[in-house]
């Protein structure tokens, strides 16, 4: 194998599994360390720079980082990254954070941008472009910003004040908000004096289920996302006693738990798939079951039963899922039919994009499934003035993906309006690799690997939580629990950097490594090399770190898979051929400058931690 080029920014980025998996590439270990140091405001700002909505995401993120977490490969449970993010938001010093908001130039740059839809994607574009002097109009049909974070995520999961605070951080930068205004014509918008338009209108159309009885029972059949929005905006405040939810995603989980809070007594979730194959996040399923709501898998909707013009029950075909060797699923009816009595049904089986307001002659090409053609890197449409991001671009994803789109779209808009190429002149990521050595066997991070298991956050007692849909059901971590959980982080951003010229091949590192990551051996092809290491390197998604040839003709091979980043190799090394170096990777924001590399440099310190000290 060829020696690894560690100057390639992506090599070490990939080692930081959580950050690599995050669509917005939030530097997770960096903020977890700050939480461990009780620097909550600093931790919040690291997040805010990267993902704009730490308080919201700390409660509602889909957590692509957690399945990627290295800790989950050496023991059962990953670090509770999402809940730690919430800790930063819950315990930050608001005045300190407010004082660190970007300065908005009073002298504008003369460019004006329209953002359609005030969801996470548009708000991110505004957050990135306002400090550069752009003038921004933000349109939304509702009375407040937030998009589906407000309309579809129930208040018991995301309290309104948390959302308001983080939406306001952006709009308070001087964004001109045009709320209660539905944009009904793209051509109309383009005719105004905007230099660019960003569309972040989400995926607003909930799918329907056309089975017998649908029309006759329509008064008691609700589309999940519309119904949640109606509850959120208090147009709906009750539901019948027996509610059936159809669907197995997070929207279905939000619907059933909301129904329990506004009149539902027997609420049942039915899913066509197996329990395991449900799309909902595992923790959402657990919270649902925890509130006493049954989830019935293998139920395929058959018919709405209407009696005397009123919905009385639903029938389901019981099905079986089987998978072939390629993992392709086949669903087969068993012949059994089950009837469930109900007064209301909520259909939560997915959602689609809809752009009825974009005229066909607006210069925006539409492709498959009537979706606009959007460049995956630049988010530009075939009308070079129009950019689309978030769920509106490629279909429903999640908040953190919308934020990532927003950052990239903001870069594109800024390049476009500066007369630069949106594809060729994109700024590179900001990287910094610096030794953490403080002395002999002293590192600037807490290298000891602790063995605590994943901490559980506490919940409001179910009886109390069900009384009011606005009571937040989960309480998050207290400070002590947060510290314990933060210490579980393996500091995967502290990289093991190997310097060939210093190595005397004494084997000290190989002998001490707890997880047999390091081997000195003859070079070979990757496949056979993976077999002959101290422990076989079977996880092909994880790279092998290959050194140049050493004096004995061997090479050093490090399997990155299970490295605990404990620093013992570097401590055992008599010549400092191993060094523990902190790698900070920051996605560049609009304005051709990387996000601040070190939070320590950007703020005036944390008042809370000052007090603690």
């Amino acid at each position, binding site marked *: 194998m060829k020696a690894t080029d560690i100057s390639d920014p992506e090599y070490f980025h990939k080692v930081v599994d959580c950050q690599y998996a995050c669509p917005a590439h939030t530097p997770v270990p960096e903020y977890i360390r700050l939480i461990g140091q009780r620097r909550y405001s600093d931790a919040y700002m690291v997040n805010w720079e990267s993902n704009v909505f730490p308080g919201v995401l700390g409660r509602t993120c889909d957590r692509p980082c957690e399945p990627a977490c290295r800790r989950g490969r050496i023991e059962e449970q990953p670090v509770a990254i999402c809940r730690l993010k919430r800790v930063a938001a819950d315990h930050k010093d608001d005045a300190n954070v407010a004082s660190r908001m970007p300065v908005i130039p009073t002298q504008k740059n003369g460019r004006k941008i329209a953002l359609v839809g005030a969801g996470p994607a548009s708000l991110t574009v505004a957050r990135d472009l306002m400090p550069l002097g752009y003038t921004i109009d933000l349109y939304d049909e509702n009375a407040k910003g937030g998009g589906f974070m407000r309309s579809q995520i129930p208040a018991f999961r995301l309290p309104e004040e948390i959302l308001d605070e983080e939406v306001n951080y952006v709009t308070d930068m001087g964004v001109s908000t045009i709320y209660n205004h539905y944009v009904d014509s793209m051509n109309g918008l383009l005719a105004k004096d905007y230099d660019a338009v960003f569309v972040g209108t989400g995926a607003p159309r909930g799918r329907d289920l056309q089975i017998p009885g649908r029309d006759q029972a329509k008064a008691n059949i609700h589309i999940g996302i519309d119904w949640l929005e109606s509850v959120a905006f208090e147009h709906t405040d009750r539901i019948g006693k027996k509610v059936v939810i159809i669907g197995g995603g997070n929207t279905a989980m939000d619907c059933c738990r909301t129904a329990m809070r506004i009149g539902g007594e027997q609420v049942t979730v039915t899913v066509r798939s197996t329990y395991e194959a449900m799309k909902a996040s595992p923790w959402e399923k657990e919270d649902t079951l925890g509130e006493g709501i049954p989830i019935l898998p293998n139920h395929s909707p058959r018919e709405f039963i209407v009696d005397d013009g009123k919905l009385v029950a639903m029938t389901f075909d019981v099905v079986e899922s089987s998978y072939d060797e390629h993992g392709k699923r086949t669903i087969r009816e068993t012949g059994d039919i089950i009837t469930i009595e109900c007064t209301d049904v909520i259909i939560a089986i997915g959602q689609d994009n809809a752009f009825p307001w974009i005229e066909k002659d607006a210069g925006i090409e539409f492709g498959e499934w009537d979706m606009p053609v959007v460049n995956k890197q630049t988010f530009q449409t075939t009308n070079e003035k129009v950019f689309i991001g978030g769920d509106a671009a490629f279909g429903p994803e999640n908040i953190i993906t919308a934020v990532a789109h927003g950052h990239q779209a903001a870069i594109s808009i800024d390049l476009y309006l500066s007369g630069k190429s949106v594809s060729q002149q994109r700024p590179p990521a900001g990287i910094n690799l610096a030794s953490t050595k403080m002395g002999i066997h002293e590192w600037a991070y807490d290298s000891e690997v602790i063995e605590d298991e994943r901490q559980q956050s506490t919940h409001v007692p179910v009886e109390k939580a069900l009384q009011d849909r606005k009571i937040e059901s989960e309480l998050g971590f207290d400070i002590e629990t947060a510290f314990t959980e933060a210490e579980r982080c393996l500091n995967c951003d502290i990289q093991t950097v190997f310097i060939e010229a210093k190595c005397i091949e*004494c084997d000290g590192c190989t002998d*001490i490594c707890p997880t047999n990551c390091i081997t000195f051996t003859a070079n070979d092809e990757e496949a056979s090399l993976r077999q002959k290491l101290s422990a076989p390197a079977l996880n092909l998604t994880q790279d092998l770190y290959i050194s140049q040839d050493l004096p004995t003709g061997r090479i050093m091979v490090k399997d990155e898979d299970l490295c605990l980043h404990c620093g013992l190799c570097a401590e055992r090394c008599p010549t400092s051929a191993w060094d523990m170096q902190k790698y900070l990777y920051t996605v560049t924001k609009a304005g051709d400058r990387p996000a601040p590399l070190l939070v320590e440099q950007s703020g005036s310190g944390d008042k809370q931690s000052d007090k603690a000290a």
Partner: protein
Amino acid sequence: MSFYKPTFRHPESPKNKLGLTTRAYEGPISTLCAGCGHDSISAAIVQAVWDLGIAPHRVAKLSGIGCSSKSPSYFLSKASGFNSVHGRMPAVMTGANVANGELHYIGISGDGDTASIGMGQFAHVIRRNLNMMYLVENNGCYGLTKGQDSATADEGSKSKKGAINPFEAIDLVALSLDLGATFVARSFSGDKEQLIPLIKAAISHKGFALIDVISPCVTFNNHQGSTKSYDYTREHAQAASVVDFVPTMQEITLEQVKGSTREVELHNGDSVQLRKLSDDYDPTDRKVAVNAVMNQKAEGKLLTGLIYINPEADDFHQMLNVSDKPLNQHDQQTLCPGASALQEINQGFR
């Protein structure tokens, strides 16, 4: 500084025939200097004993005094251990061995502990062919007292401070051959591929097995001019043979019989496969072994590998006809048969 090694291990760590991973054979984190050859040797012992499938508590590790003699703390935590007086490990080892012949005995010593203060005991334990592995962690200096030349420092080698050693070195391999050792090997801490099979063979050998392991002192003896440094040893080591240890039940694969090989069967049915690097070398012939050591030395080379083996010789137990059953398993009556039995013995000498 970390004095603690995380307990997490590779989930796919292989298991030996007892179902144990190497973790069961490890010890606490070493406090020797980072890069010390002794730590590599400890790791090799862990690997070898694990490979052999010996239960860790069936091993007794004994040592004298010195950096080397500290190292048994850092492997096989579950084994019995005795850190004896300087140079007196062989005497304590003999007592332990006589009392319980069923354990596997590992003696760890250093060049000072063996070639200086312990020289007398070393010579006599060889004569007695005590069933043990005697491993010398040989770094040619007194690392614990700031690196003075030891008795194994080569004539003409330079100390860290620049002084040239005027004295002839004691060659433990040549000496043991002369004293009649039944297993004599030399290796290098930086070459585990050679060292691990040698340790396995030495533990399986019935009788006294010496392994003289060049183990560089990174702090005091790893500089230009030293003849016990990592670089010097790598440049001057000359393997007598490549050793593969083959357990009883394992079939010899084609790979292993390829080339000029010779199989030496051990008393327990295990065998040592020697891939010879020169045709005229016979490791069961003591005269050949002595010559080879001398010839290589004359050429400025260091002969390594399994240099001599005699699997047939009687060990100390057989010579003295000592009880096979460990003393702790005999009942009181057998161990203390009383005055009449003593009288009977005394009578036999009259």
